[in-house]
């Protein structure tokens, strides 16, 4: 292994956060092309299945991580699961923050139709989202953290898939619109007006 690759391996081991290619180049005082080459060398040395570690590209940088082969033993040694799974409410709140950030709790409540307060609190406690200032109405705004990118294996928010891919087809949408329209007319036509308070 080249000396440059060795040095970079050591830097990735020491740094608690993913290191960007620019920061690496500056630290090792080498041309970005040389750094890219050394990183390729490292990736080859840590090819999946070869070692207990792998090279990961997450949160805008490069970092070393363990191969899942070690998970059971790691759990026994460290006596804690890597990360607990998300409840549906937490996942929805997180998805809204991820796609719409910065976003406020009232906005999240409007989209979900129910309050997301306890989910939001848990996500903040787990370090997946954080405060990002206040809206013009004084509501706290939230954004995702680098830890979110790391734990979800994302290099940047751009890696999130386009959410419109989950929208129904035009045909399904037309059917839905039709059904809503019929229901609305029934309500307006047949049902008595709401009782006066």
């Amino acid at each position: 292994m080249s000396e440059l690759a060795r040095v970079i391996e050591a830097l990735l081991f020491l740094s608690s956060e993913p290191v960007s290619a620019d920061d690496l180049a500056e630290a090792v005082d080498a041309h970005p092309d040389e750094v890219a080459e050394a990183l390729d060398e490292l990736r080859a040395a840590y090819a999946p299945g070869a070692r207990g570690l792998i090279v990961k590209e997450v949160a805008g940088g490069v970092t070393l991580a363990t191969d899942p082969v070690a998970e059971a033993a790691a759990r026994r040694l460290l006596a804690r699961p890597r990360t607990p799974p998300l409840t549906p409410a937490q996942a929805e709140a997180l998805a809204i923050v991820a796609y719409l950030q910065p976003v406020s709790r009232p906005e999240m409540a409007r989209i979900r139709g129910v309050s997301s307060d306890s989910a939001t609190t848990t996500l903040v406690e787990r370090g997946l989202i954080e405060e990002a200032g206040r809206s013009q109405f004084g509501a706290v705004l939230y954004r995702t953290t680098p830890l979110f990118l790391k734990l979800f294996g994302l290099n940047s928010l751009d890696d999130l898939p386009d959410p419109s891919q989950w929208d129904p087809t035009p045909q399904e949408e037309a059917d839905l619109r039709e059904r809503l329209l019929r229901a609305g007319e029934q309500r307006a036509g047949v049902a008595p007006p709401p009782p006066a308070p």
Partner: protein
Amino acid sequence: MSVATDLELDLDVFSGPFDLLLALVLREEVDLLEVPLADIVLAYLDHLDARGELDLEQATEFLVLVAALLELKSRLMLPREEEELLELDPGEAAEELLARMLEAKRYRSAADDLRARLEAEEGIRYRSAPAPAWLKRPSLDELDAVYDPARLGQAIGALLKPPPEVSLHHVTVHAVTVEQRLKVLRRLLGRARTLSFDEAVRGADRVTVAVTVWALLELYKRGEATWHQDEPFGEITIVAQDEPAWGREEQAA
């Protein structure tokens, strides 16, 4: 003693005196949507039981505060846009609902995608051990100033200002008591033996109307008056009873 300071609550979301809960709700530090108002009423009833007597002053105050919280909470649960939605014609309403359903579905699916991603990363762990301190120690000589000291002065100056007092004004704005309404009812019934409820509350605001109902219950309990209503939302007629207590107003308290 005010009921607001007197009433100790022990709810899931909050534990402490009622007035502190009010203050926290108004400062939006406790989410009113998560406060079970029924539990507060139950706590109040327990509180009454423990005291063994009904303090009308306190009862009125409690009624007004809880009514205000209820109104606030119902508004929170029915955001304004929902009201606007009701006024849309069926076509517009359907479009609006459709847009919301699509938006909600989009993020539910995005949530599923995120959960799948997290699962795919299962078993991949990162090192969290800190780097040795001696490697991290910067050399002070090579550093330039990057922060403005004024930032610190501003921060400490802002902390020196006491915050504006939380106003409970709009919660306790109508300081009408059951006793006051008892007096009014007794005076009116003293003049005419029969009285319509509408007359008794003519021109009054909603809280006064509510407190008047409370006073009416009190009159009934004491056998001073009965009332009847022939149909829902119809007129309520109040009739004085044979053994009138008019003129003994002060005793009631």
